[in-house]
């Protein structure tokens, strides 16, 4: 138990002193995860919206696939991205492996089905009268789509926040395609795994607290949007 209390004491000291190593690792996590969620949002929200509103051949299959992909294990995504970005892989010439970009690609793949799937549910949950009301008041196709998005905005924000929560706390992808390089691709989760392995509980716990400090407002936001939605 002593080493755990010692770890907590050391962690609090590092946080209070704004330890450079802790800050650097936290910033990498934040930068990579924000970039990933932006990409996943740009792709996932329109896909979810389209699948929800359009009738097309294979729609049911698309919904089932999206829902299945929401449960994709991070190591499987890590393996997939690794095989594409490794030197022998089809995208090996890009030189992305063991860079933050590789982590961004992997995390975007992880977040995409979450954002798309939850956006789909959010759009389906929007009152059917919104479309008719917008059209009756003179809206064109784009304006009608925007009206539907606007009415479902809280649920869509909740989808984005759920995606961010998932990528911010994942470890498999970052470890496999980021390489856990200090000051470059070492993020909170990979650093915790490493420091725990080394028996350095202080840094591990400090990073864990930082992780929770970021996760807490995210969850508060999530809760807020969920309440707004209902």
């Amino acid at each position, binding site marked *: 138990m002593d080493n755990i209390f010692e770890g907590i004491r050391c962690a609090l000291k590092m946080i209070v002193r704004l330890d450079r190593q802790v800050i650097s690792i936290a910033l990498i996590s934040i930068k990579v995860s924000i970039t990933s969620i932006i990409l996943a949002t740009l792709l996932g929200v329109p896909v979810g919206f389209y699948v929800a509103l359009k009738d097309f051949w294979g729609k049911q299959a698309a919904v089932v696939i999206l829902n299945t992909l929401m449960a994709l294990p991070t190591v499987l995504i890590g393996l997939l991205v690794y095989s594409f970005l490794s030197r022998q892989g089809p995208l090996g010439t890009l030189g992305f492996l063991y860079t933050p970009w590789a982590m961004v690609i992997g995390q975007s793949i992880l977040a995409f089905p979450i954002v798309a799937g939850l956006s789909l549910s959010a759009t389906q949950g929007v009152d059917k*009268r919104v479309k008719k009301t917008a*059209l*009756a008041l*003179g809206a064109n196709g784009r304006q009608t789509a925007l009206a539907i998005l606007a009415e479902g905005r809280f649920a869509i924000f909740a989808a984005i926040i759920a995606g961010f929560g998932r990528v911010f706390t994942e470890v498999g992808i970052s470890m496999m395609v980021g390489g856990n390089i200090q000051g470059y691709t070492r993020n909170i989760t990979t650093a915790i795994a490493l420091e725990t392995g080394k028996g350095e509980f202080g840094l591990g716990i400090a990073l864990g607290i930082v992780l929770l400090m970021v996760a807490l407002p995210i969850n508060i936001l999530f809760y807020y949007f969920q309440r707004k939605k209902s």
Partner: protein
Amino acid sequence: MEKPVLKVENLSRSYKDGFTLQIPYLEFQEGKIYTLFGPNGAGKTTLLNLLAFLDFPEKGKILFREKEVTSKNSNLVLLRKKITLVMQDPYLFKGSVIQNVYYGLELRSLKFNEVKEKIGKALNMLGLWKLRNRDVQTLSGGERQKLALARAIILDTEALLLDEPTAYLDEVYTASIEEFISNIMAKSSRTLIMATHNLEQAHRLSKEIIFLLGGRIQSVSPWNAYSAEVRGEGDLKTAQINSGPEIYVVTKKSGRRRLGIDPKNIILSLDRIESSALNSFKGKVTSIKEINDLMQITVKRGVDFNILITHKSFAELKIALGKDLYLTFKASAVEVFR
């Protein structure tokens, strides 16, 4: 010369549940108020959706200002801006009262400052000005209906379509909405087409009543509507129907009035019935028709009385053209309109 704003020709629209709306011809003139009257499921909402270009017929045509409108019209959005529909249970966008009223104007590229006064005027007319910054979620049913009406009326469209605007409202809200509709139409050249299942309301608001039943327009109104002179003191009065019999009615109104009798409230018999019903007289059968599982019998006594009866009653009474039958109905079964 009268100009039709909307016209329907040989229209047919079917739905998966088997319902089909079939209208051979119908036109709506500029500046007039029309009511589509019929029970639930008669096709009123279907017709309004077609007239608002939100749905399209499988067969036949809808014409706006004599030009056919189809789903493939390149200027469909522009045409939709000339007509607006207020749904029976209107949807209000999340936000404030004023944001909702501004929505349609914004779609027409009008800046808020340009239309501020107009919005204020519309909200004032409907008594919504003091609620302008309120979240729409906090409005009552009547206030929501008024807001939906304000949001549509402010657009000054050539035709305004209202689907049962007072269906869920109490008498006070109904009266204020009817008054607003009458006032706005008195000063306007736009066309109003309103669906209602309340015949009294249809008579109060318009002279042009279109009867819909089972997706078809009824050339002869299944309702019996007459002009009459109502006389007498107290609530029980007599009404002399133009070219028809004198009947008893229960009303506070008197003078020249429109009367309505539900065809299901008239009893047909071979002999006079001794009952509490004050109205009983003889007439001659002039027409027999089948309407939606019922038989419509027209009996002439100066004017035509339409009566709906079951096939069983029809067979038992052995009704045939030219036969004499007694009509019996209560004084309270007669609606006295404006």
